[in-house]
């Protein structure tokens, strides 16, 4: 049963990725695109975890951890850059 549930859940996450990609391409503002990228990496993280369950291997979880850390740093840096024009205060 868990194989069917994995297939269904992967399909749902893939539709979510497509909707997020639409917002990424069509977003009227830069911050909409940043938000779409944030959602995109969280959904990609979930898909990597689902593939790890399906293949019963451990390698995918290292990748998921790296995606989680780098995605958060990317979102924070991009949001600050859009708001202020630089990432680190110089004065």
């Amino acid at each position, binding site marked *: *049963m*868990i*194989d*069917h*549930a*994995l297939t*269904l*859940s*992967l*399909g*749902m*996450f893939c*539709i*979510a*990725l497509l*909707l*997020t990609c*639409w*917002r990424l391409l069509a977003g009227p*503002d830069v*911050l*909409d695109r*940043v*938000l*779409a990228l*944030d*959602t995109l990496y*969280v*959904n990609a*993280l*979930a898909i990597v*975890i*689902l593939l*790890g*369950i*399906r*293949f*019963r291997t*451990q390698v995918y*979880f*290292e990748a*998921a*951890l790296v995606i*989680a*850390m780098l995605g*958060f740093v990317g*979102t*924070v840096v991009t*949001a*600050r850059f*859009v*708001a*202020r024009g630089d990432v680190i205060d110089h004065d």
Partner: protein
Amino acid sequence: MTHDALPFAIDLVASLLLVAGGGFALVGAIGLARLRDFYLRVHAPTKASTLGVGGALLASMLVFGWTGQRLVIHELLITVFVFVTAPIAAHLLVKSALERDPAQRPPAPDRIADHAEDSGASHSPRM
């Protein structure tokens, strides 16, 4: 794929968690694609995606914890990290939007009634 057979209870609970997580992520993405304003759009996926990832991680913890291939430290680390960082990222995004565009700032809470009267039904939080 040849899986070692899971007991029925763990199979059922993990399947329910997986489907619920996928449903949450799908609802969040639909909200991100369909809602009208940036402040409405930032509301939808930041909670739903966290719950979606949480469902997938709980199912993974169940399956790998039962089959005993390893400890579930990885899932715990990812869960803590995602659950801590996703609200911070959303908060920083909204702060950036407010700093960047003060004209788009939503009205203060005591003026919401006036604002709704001014612009009619278009400011109800529906699509």
